[in-house]
């Protein structure tokens, strides 16, 4: 014990006044590196989760809209106009309505612009042969006239 105290005293004996020990410096550098790498891991995880939740919302909404259009087959022998509000999508606490595109009269594509570009999801639908599907403002309108 006494020997150890002697060693420690000897160690600090060689330090000049006001000098930070090399041990403390290394510890601080490693602590900063560890915290930095944790921050990178958490940030990349968070960004991955944000994109995942955005994709999930887009998939659910495109599926809802596709099911809505498919259901109109039941009244295809009548003249009708039916509409559904396009649901908003929340990404990083910002709620916005996605862009709606109808592809080949069989797919509905929802796109949402993020800082890394557009995130898109498609859903297949079947509509009555002579009907039209279009976006009018915030509404998706299916008409058979």
């Amino acid at each position: 014990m006494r020997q150890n105290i002697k060693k420690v005293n000897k160690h600090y004996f060689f330090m000049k006044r006001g000098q930070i020990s090399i041990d403390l410096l290394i510890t601080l550098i490693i602590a900063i590196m560890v915290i930095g790498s944790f921050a990178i891991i958490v940030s990349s995880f968070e960004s991955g989760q944000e994109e995942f939740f955005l994709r999930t919302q887009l998939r659910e909404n495109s599926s809802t809209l596709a099911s809505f259009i498919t259901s109109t087959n039941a009244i295809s022998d009548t003249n009708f106009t039916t509409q559904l509000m396009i649901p908003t999508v929340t990404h990083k606490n910002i709620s916005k309505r996605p862009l709606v595109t109808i592809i080949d009269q069989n797919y509905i594509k929802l796109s949402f612009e993020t800082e890394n570009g557009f995130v898109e999801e498609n859903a297949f639908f079947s509509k009555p042969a002579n009907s039209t599907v279009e976006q009018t403002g915030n509404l998706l309108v299916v008409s058979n006239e």
Partner: protein
Amino acid sequence: MNKGQIFSIDFLIAMILMIFFLGLLLSLGELQGYERKEARIRYEIASKTEAAIISLVNSPQYACEMDTNSYLAYSLDISKINTMSNDELKKSLGLLDYNLSLLLDNLILSGHDDPLNGKNIYAVDLDILYCNGNISFSDLNMCMNGTCGTVIEKHTLKVKVSK
């Protein structure tokens, strides 16, 4: 601290605990994401199946046509279904990427029995009127009075969709 010692035991314990809690936090996040994905798949299959069923038993494309030039709601004309392949039927019902099986009173409708290989299966039982070709109003009237003949019959349609 001893001479030459870089880390104190306190610092090491703190780092280990930090890694442990970070790992716990990340795995909880992953778990939540997985549950959300499962819920989304269930929602998607349910909403697609319900839309397909509405189309199948109400659309003039598959419903029984009456002599009054109208179509019977919640009916299925087997002569119309038999002319279509299962792939055509799936495309027409908006179930392009899904497996579809149709059963009438638990008997498979031939040609419409995709193997249900998917992890998620959604099945719906529906009481319908079943016909083979056009029907007359008097046939329907007789059925409503309790004497359904061979032209129009009451059955339970089971629709199974999987992905």
